[in-house]
């Protein structure tokens, strides 16, 4: 008879990270303010797509799409993604020209643990918009220590 408790002994701690090096909600806010140069960020226009339940934090598909006509007069200049609990609050920043055609970005990111993610878009009129989401990273059983 095997018990869950016994099997769990086989799992070394996931992603050992020194506590001191972790990002925090405050560090994330600071990073966002550096990106927006202190401007107000409104909620909306940005849609982040990421699985709410992640089976391995090493490679997590993420996409961000911003509602914009992407014309020379009205386009998205930049999209940045931030997190609360990785070693660093910044994930990625992309810069776009109207000739990108769509304000869309897809990549794979790392998540050290369950946390809040924030995507912020800078529009050509100088306004900033955002979307945030809570992601749960499940504990993997069979990690290679």
């Amino acid at each position: 008879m095997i018990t869950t408790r016994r099997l769990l002994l086989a799992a070394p701690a996931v992603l050992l990270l020194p506590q001191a090096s972790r990002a925090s909600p405050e560090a994330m806010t600071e990073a966002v303010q550096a990106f927006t140069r202190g401007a107000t960020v409104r909620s909306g226009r940005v849609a982040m797509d990421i699985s709410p339940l992640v089976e391995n934090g090493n490679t997590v598909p993420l996409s961000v799409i911003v509602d914009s006509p992407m014309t020379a007069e009205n386009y998205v200049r930049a999209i940045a993604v931030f997190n609360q609990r990785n070693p660093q609050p910044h994930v990625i920043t992309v810069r776009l020209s109207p000739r990108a055609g769509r304000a869309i970005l897809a990549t794979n990111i790392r998540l050290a643990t369950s946390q809040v993610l924030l995507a912020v878009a800078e529009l050509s009129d100088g306004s900033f918009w955002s979307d945030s989401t809570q992601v749960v990273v499940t504990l993997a059983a069979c990690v290679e220590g």
Partner: protein
Amino acid sequence: MKRALPILLLAPLCLSASAQERRSGFENMARDTQAMQTDDTANPGMLWVLEGQSLWHQPAGPAAQSCASCHQNTEVSMRGVAARYPAWDEASAAPIDLAGRIAQCRETRQGAPPLARESQGLLSLSAYVGNQSRGLPIAPPADPRMDAAREQGRALYTARRGQLDLSCAQCHDDNAGRRLAGSTIPQAHPTGYPLYRLEWQTLGSLQRRLRGCMTGVRAEPFAYGASEYVAIEAFLASRAQGMALETPAVRP
């Protein structure tokens, strides 16, 4: 709407019936991870397939022969090959797995420097050859000389080992489909090797995976290339006979 209802009601019954059937680890994965595998433009394992394709056509050794010099028309000549391994090796009078065969071919036929187990070169070539059989059923050779290895593999698979005193079968037969921490325990069918494991953040062989399981139960793993691994590989292939190859698979 009304017509759809009986089908919906049947769904739970179908699920419980299929739970007894063989399932690739693919079935247990989150939709995002499945999508990463099935889309060749997003599957990181394809980077190794591409590398393997380039190595396949690259001359090596004193006679400047490439794999393709002998195995021309790779898409045809190598199709189905990976599905038949491990197989009997006449030269060593022992079973050999696909990576072993590629390494042997390179050393004895091309006269090129040996490729170590789990080296980028051998993984890439294995991924390229494996990819030629994607979608084909696993077809272990009927060769009776393989029987002893398959039996040894079965014995190793069912033997308790390590400080946790667990056998492969206790997780992957007795508790397959149940959860261990956040993960569903798969049935351990070798359908996608070498595969890109998110946990590894790279491509790895079935032997690497077996070693991971062994250290997981706190057992001393065998050395890479050990006959014990080839025996387990042969047993797992016979157990997965008929299941479709997915190389390069993606797993969490």
